[in-house]
């Protein structure tokens, strides 16, 4: 087998070497370790010696050629061997290393388009063929591209690419993305007019909407909000809601409330709210109107023996309905204590599961928000919900002589699931409720 004579690698990061001169010619006899050619790397000139003793044949490269290391550059034949024994791949790099293509000398470089990277990028952005851009010097600069763009009426595009970036903090940019409020519609309050996060959030509240576009704070419908949405939507779609309203004179309740609170103060116990008193009276009415205190579950109507009154409570993350269990069996002050405990824990997110389970009826009171009258959506699987309005002082007829008197009035609106509760059933409940509010002595034995 002819012995391959390779271009040696002599340096750590060396990839190729230039042949300076051949000291031996085709057909010469060479001795092992005898210098055959001189090559040059980037660092040094090297004598390359013969790998074996024999006849030097198959010289592939001439002086000046740049040859990748490990390329076979010739062969050494032992006596009796011929060139015919040389394998096909002579002159190709040996296996293992993907060396760069052999470059013949002398090397003539073909110059690329002389343009700066910025100029090339700008030309690409403007859709300009960079080779058409006339140069003012040895290279095409940004200014050349701009001048060419102006000539070819690309001015508007130019001005767009030149638009200064709006100064905004990363948080402001994020909020802009999330809300869809464009940053150029926001006035920056930060240093150098930089837009801060707060500038974007306040824009979403106060900036008048432009006619073509709306801006909003976008909040994903997730977690508790999603549950509320699903429950109430289901309720409103599945349960045919009917609503009936009564206006009730609550002067007697105000007296009772005052009395109870004076007692509470003396005893050092918690004050009672109008809600607590109403829950007591509502429980009394529920005891007498079992269809209103019911649930519709899997095509069965459950008429509950217990009276568990849920109080719709607004908290930061949404709406929650903690339950006063067996409200009919509790005194007003017990109910007041229980409501107080539940609402405190609700706001601290510390309600337990049992606090919100097993409700049989719900009361929603917007009185403190000065809402006079409203309709609530039933809290399924319950069949009715009572919406309690604000106490309003109204002139009403108080006797058979049509005497007018100003009295504290609350409007109660019962929303009922008509699948279970007929209009008359709802009306009877409201009448009972009216009766007990106007004549609370009916349940005097329970008041303490």
């Amino acid at each position, binding site marked *: 087998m002819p012995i391959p004579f390779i271009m040696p690698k002599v340096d750590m990061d060396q990839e190729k070497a230039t042949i300076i001169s051949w000291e031996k010619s085709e057909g010469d006899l060479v001795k092992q370790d005898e210098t055959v050619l001189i090559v040059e790397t980037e660092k040094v000139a090297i004598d390359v010696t013969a790998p074996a003793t024999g006849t030097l044949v198959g010289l592939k490269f001439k002086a000046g050629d740049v040859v990748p290391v490990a390329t076979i550059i010739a062969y050494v034949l032992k006596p009796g061997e011929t060139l015919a024994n040389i394998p096909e791949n002579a002159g190709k790099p040996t296996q293992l290393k993907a060396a760069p293509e052999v470059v013949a000398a002398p090397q003539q470089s073909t110059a690329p388009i002389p343009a700066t990277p910025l100029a090339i990028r700008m030309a690409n952005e403007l859709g300009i063929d960079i080779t058409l851009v006339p140069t003012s010097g040895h290279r095409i600069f940004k200014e050349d591209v701009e001048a060419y763009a102006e000539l070819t009426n690309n001015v508007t595009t130019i001005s767009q690419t030149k638009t200064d970036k709006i100064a905004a*903090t*990363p*948080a*402001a*940019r*994020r909020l802009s993305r999330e809300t869809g409020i464009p940053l150029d519609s926001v006035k920056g*309050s*930060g*240093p150098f007019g930089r837009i*801060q*996060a*707060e500038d974007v959030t306040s824009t979403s509240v106060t900036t008048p909407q432009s006619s073509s576009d709306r801006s909003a704070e976008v909040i994903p419908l997730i977690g508790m909000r999603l549950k509320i949405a699903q429950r109430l939507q289901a309720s409103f779609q599945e349960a045919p809601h009917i609503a009936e309203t009564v206006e009730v004179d609550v002067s007697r309740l105000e007296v009772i409330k005052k009395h109870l609170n004076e007692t509470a103060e003396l005893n050092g116990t918690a004050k009672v709210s109008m809600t607590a008193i109403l829950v007591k009276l509502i429980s009394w009415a529920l005891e007498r109107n079992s269809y209103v205190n019911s649930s519709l579950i899997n095509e069965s109507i459950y008429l509950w023996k217990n009276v568990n009154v849920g109080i719709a409570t607004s908290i930061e993350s949404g709406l929650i309905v903690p339950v006063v269990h067996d409200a009919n069996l509790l005194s007003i002050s017990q109910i007041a204590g229980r409501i107080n405990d539940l609402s405190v824990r609700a706001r601290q997110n510390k309600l337990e599961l049992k606090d919100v389970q097993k409700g049989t009826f719900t009361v929603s009171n917007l009185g403190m928000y000065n809402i006079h009258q409203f309709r609530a959506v039933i809290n399924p699987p319950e069949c009715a919900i009572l919406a309690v309005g604000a106490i309003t002082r109204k002139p009403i007829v108080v006797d058979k002589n049509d005497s007018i008197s100003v009295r504290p009035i609350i409007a109660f609106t019962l929303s009922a699931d008509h699948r279970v509760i007929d209009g008359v059933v709802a009306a009877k409940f409201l009448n009972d409720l009216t009766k007990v509010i106007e004549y609370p002595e009916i349940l005097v034995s329970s008041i303490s």
Partner: protein
Amino acid sequence: MPEITYLEAIRQTLWNEMKRDERVFIIGEDIGRYGGAFGVTHGMLDEFGEKRIIETPISEPSIIGAAIGAALLDMRPVVEIMFMDFILLTLDQIGNQAAKMHYMFGGKATVPIVIRMPGGSGSGAAAQHSQSLETLLMHLPGLKVVTPSTPYDAKGLLTTALRDLNPVCFIEHKLLYKMKGEVPEEDYAIPFGVADVKRKGKDLTVVTNEIMVHKTIAVANRLASEGIEIEVVDLRTMVPLDKQTIIESVTRTGKLLVVHEACETAGWAGEIMAVVSESRAFDYLDAPMRRLTGKNTPIPYNRDLERAAVPQEEDIEREIRAILKGEY
């Protein structure tokens, strides 16, 4: 819980570990009768003898080299380098040898050494005895870098260091040596790579370490009376770095100040900012991230000059106010 000093916490930990593990020994200059330049090893020679409290000539590179050799034979050497500044004498042994061996020998070698080094300024020791060089060490993969700020942390982190299989640079700020704090007598370890939020706050995050933790907390307490709530993140270990805590904190506050005593250029404040920039916290930034660091100067001798060379409480306060006022 007993109150002991930072120095006593370190001594107690070394003492207990030497009782527990006979492979542990201490090697360094003047650590015997003298008790070490700062007195950390005081009394240990009598207890453990000169075979385990090995006093050396002044030959820092070879002291570290000796520790490496012993570690290769499964010993647990603790090196005391008298001043952190002297690690510059030893960088070959720390950086080319200890840090690299596990890797370059394909996982076959482990180098469980702890190099204790008092660092930091404030003692009037001037340019060659006052540096904070943790960044230098952080840049050498293979090393762990620990910077405890309290006696409690010092004990828990040193315990972990002594049981770690890697070379650990344990940096003790000189001014903390006398600081007292509650330290349980029983053995406990604080894992590396877990930053400690030393103070919760919602308005701005300060990421810091060692003595600057205390300066920052003092400032934060003052600002709290004005309703400004500063969150103070004590990194505790620089390598490994608890990126998660930094990211979470900045995501909440939207503002970051990094405070360190080491000088500014290529200091680790830049690293912390990079961590934030590369993370989701970037999108919550509502002010430029800022750093407050030692000046790019050697530590001077004169007391006022020395104070001026590194961040003081008033500097931290001024910087926090400036960020919150939107001055940057």
